[in-house]
């Protein structure tokens, strides 16, 4: 048999790939396998017992009359109630993974009981069994199985005595697993005094008294008014500050601005400017770097010294005069102190106010949520027809933000990257028509196409 010389072909393109890859042996194999699967294994070799089985089950499905069927139907719940029914859990037998494993394990144990097992196999079987039981027990156990605030004491009784100081305790425990870093003082301090659940405004009752309801309404209205005022102010300060002009005028302005310095815009002025350029550029005489001579320098130094001496003399004179000004200075000092005191008072007042306000912990400022409120027309006065207001989850988040536990953030949505879509060159048209068929079709058709395209030109 001669070995066919393997021809090296480039399979770069799809057509080449299709043409040169040999998959016949694979296909043959798959077909054979499929065939065997369909037929079953070689039948001739199987015994009758394997192929057939005797049906000894005599119970036939009961044939029911129409009446009997209806009777059964009446006992079932109505179909219209099916939405209300509880889902039926069919797998009453636990079919969890753990159970399956344990079943498999028992099977293996039974099978291997007769045979001799290797000691390692026996060990592995035992181990798996123990591990399974342990896991099962762990799942059954309750997480909360001890008094958290007592156990620690009972473990280290001698360390808990009052004679042992905190630092000693820490020192003894250092390097052990029980060692825990003590909370630093700064962490232990509570940062806010705001309550975690704020008491509700009495006007938020489902059946409020008129006064309370009005009080709440007033609070909300005041807040709203403040916002409106702020908005108006911003509008006045920004939008309304500028004059409005027509679109045409705006266009003109724009053109004028944009064509600044261009030759044709300054055509008329050109003749004038040409005349100007011939004369001097500046009115001032040109600067000359003229050096001072030695005499001038000496004089300048002397002047400087004199000025300094005079200044010192003046200070000395003032010192003497100040003795007579003591009263004035005193009043000045007192005034200054008073000023400082008032400032300090102001600061303390402000500090006190700030305690009840959320702090600024992040780039975004905390925004007070709207108060819950029901309009008078929605107040029914009974519990059955109560109209719910507000979102409790949102309320919780806002409370956490207010107490600076969570920093206020704006939820960011990820911008999806734009995926540029393009079609591969081989897929541009329906490739079956343009590429594959073109190869298969006889030439005349191609020629035909050419003609058609020629016609169109």
């Amino acid at each position: 048999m001669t070995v066919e010389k393997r021809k090296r072909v480039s399979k770069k393109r799809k057509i080449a790939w299709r043409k040169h890859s040999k998959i016949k042996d694979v296909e043959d194999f798959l077909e054979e396998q499929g065939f065997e699967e369909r037929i079953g294994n070689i039948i001739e070799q199987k015994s009758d017992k394997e192929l057939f089985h005797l049906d000894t089950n005599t119970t036939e499905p009961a044939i029911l009359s129409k009446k009997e069927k209806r009777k059964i139907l009446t006992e079932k719940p109505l179909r219209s109630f099916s939405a209300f029914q509880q889902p039926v859990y069919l797998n009453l037998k636990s079919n969890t993974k753990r159970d399956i494993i344990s079943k498999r394990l028992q099977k293996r144990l039974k099978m291997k009981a007769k045979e001799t097992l290797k000691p390692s196999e026996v060990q592995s079987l035992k181990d798996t069994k123990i591990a399974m039981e342990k896991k099962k027990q762990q799942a059954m156990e309750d997480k909360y199985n001890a008094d958290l605030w007592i156990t620690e004491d009972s473990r280290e009784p001698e360390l808990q005595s009052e004679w042992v100081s905190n630092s000693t305790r820490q020192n003894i425990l250092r390097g052990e697993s029980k060692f825990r870093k003590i909370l630093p003082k700064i962490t232990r301090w509570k940062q806010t005094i705001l309550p975690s659940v704020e008491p509700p405004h009495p006007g938020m009752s489902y059946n409020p008294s008129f006064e309370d309801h009005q009080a709440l309404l007033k609070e909300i209205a005041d807040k709203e008014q403040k916002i409106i005022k702020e908005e108006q102010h911003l509008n006045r300060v920004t939008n309304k500050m500028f004059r409005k002009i027509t679109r045409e005028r705006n266009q003109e302005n724009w053109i004028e601005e944009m064509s600044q310095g261009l030759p044709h815009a300054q055509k008329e002025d050109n003749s004038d400017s040409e005349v100007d350029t011939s004369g001097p550029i500046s009115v001032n005489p040109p600067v000359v770097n003229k050096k001072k001579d030695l005499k001038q320098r000496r004089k300048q130094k002397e002047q400087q010294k004199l000025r300094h001496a005079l200044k010192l003399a003046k200070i000395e004179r003032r010192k003497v005069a100040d003795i007579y000004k003591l009263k004035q200075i005193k009043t000045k000092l007192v005034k200054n102190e008073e000023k400082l005191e008032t400032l300090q008072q102001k600061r303390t007042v402000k500090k006190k106010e700030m305690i009840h306000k959320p702090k600024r912990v992040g780039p975004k400022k905390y925004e007070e949520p709207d108060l819950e409120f029901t309009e008078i027309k929605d107040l029914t006065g009974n519990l059955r027809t109560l109209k719910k207001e507000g979102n409790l989850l949102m309320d919780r988040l806002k409370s956490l933000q207010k107490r600076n536990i969570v920093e206020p953030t704006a939820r960011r949505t990820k911008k999806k990257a734009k995926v540029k879509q393009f079609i591969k060159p081989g897929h541009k048209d329906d490739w079956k028509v343009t590429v594959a068929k073109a190869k298969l079709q006889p030439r005349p058709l191609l020629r035909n196409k050419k003609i058609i395209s020629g016609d169109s030109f």
Partner: protein
Amino acid sequence: MVSKRKKKYSTGEGSQFISRKQALKKLQLTLNDFRRLCIIKGIYPREPRNRKRAQKGDTGIKTLYHIKDIQFLMHEPIIWTLRDYKIFNRKVGRAKAVRDFKTMKKFLDNHPTLKLDHIVKERYPTFIDAIRDLDDCLTLCFLFSTFPSLAHIPREQFNLCRRLTIEFMHAIIEAKALRKVFISIKGYYYQAEIKGQTVTWIIPHHFSFEPQSKQEVDFKVMSTFVEFYLIMLGFVNYRLYHSLNLFYPPKLSISTPNESEKALVDENMFLSERIAALNTPLVKTSNEPVEEDIEIDTFSENNPEKIEEARNEAIKIKKLKTLFKGLKFFLNREVPREPLVFIIRCFGGEVSWDKNLFVGSTFNEDDETITHQVADRPSLEKQYISRYYVQPQWVFDSVNAKELLPVSKYFIGEVLPPHLSPFVNNERNPFEQYIPPEERALMDPAFAEEINKKRQEKENKQVDCIDNNDELEHDNNEIIKTNGLEETEVEKLDPALDKKKKLSVAPGTIYKEEPWMQKKQERQEYKLREKMIKKKHRKIYRAMIRNKKDKAKESWLLRKKRRIIDESKKDNKT
């Protein structure tokens, strides 16, 4: 030798703070892990005194943490678990990508778990500390217990929330610790007193879950809070149960519903079972009474009034604990069952409902021993004579008033009186602040009686056709009396009385200490003491008194206005 130049921001505020990004780098954690760690450990961002200095010259606003906080976080062993999570995720992701499902399942079975017990202990060194911080925990857990299962949140968290909240409610029932309740449009507010600490929480109304369109709230963050709070609540429950001589975890014995009952259930099964569980008492470990009631000592302190007040309060609370004892309630089906069952059981009442509708009912509607039936519809077809038909608000208002209110105002079909908040400052002094008479009547029953008497008297007087002027004067006097400040003036107003006393000679009578004389004496002494106030405190004291007086005056004025309005109304009617 020249000392080394000190670098900028190496001391003071510049060295005390660390930005979030720096903290991430220092702890080698991702942002999500860092957030989780901070929530669990209770480390929050801070606001520096001088931001520019704290940010080392940067003027923008950054999230800053105290450096000691971050150093403290570095010692936390659960950081290692968080890092393990990262590796675990990578491994699982890889196994999934190469479609090696066997190893993927193996990994998933041994996923790392966070153990938070020690953190609870660390953050709350004593049990009282934990209770003090229970408000947030309860509100969030109750809220999550009403949610359906959501993406990215472990399902067991919801189940655990349900379990622990119901256990907590049981503990409250057993301890009779509930004090105040309030129905707001947001939800039910409850306030309990546990170990001397007031705990307030909100339970949402039925069907509280609202799917959010814009994802305003990050469920993952909230779930981290819940994760920690669940551990905390579990241990608090454990301690509470043991202090009440109860088994923990409790076996909530719910009679399993039969087929017909199951077929009839139209509400969520868990909800009805949850409420049914509330209606059964728990098993006790021993019948020893839990020592609780503390007798108030009778020290002769300088302010006996306050002691008296405290004692009265204690008596009121003792009465409140057995408010509904011996009463039997039947709930109609339109009534929200969970809050009512909880409240009634808290104060020793017995509750039941239609056994055909929900599981766990204890007696039927035709039981003749039922004292109250709670209904929320204008009329009922079949009514028993032996019981009151009241609207649910009666239960809530009775609890807040700390006594059983007259039912007549709360009968079905009746227009209800307003449901007032018990959370408004209860230290409101009627002389310092104006309180509408209706509310004051609710707050103290003595005042209500007084009002009733007055009304009757007035009616009698009107029958007798006595001049209105007289009455006005009489009222005026009374108001001044109640104001308490101008008592001496009142005495001056009645000179005739004084004269008589001076003139009449009564030989042989035992010397009796006149109460008004004593008062006068006291007043004088008080004034003397006032004069002895140090110069340092004088100004603030005067301001205080002035404030008090102003408030009293305002309150008096408002009451006067009210009286005039009332009278004009009455005149219009007649």
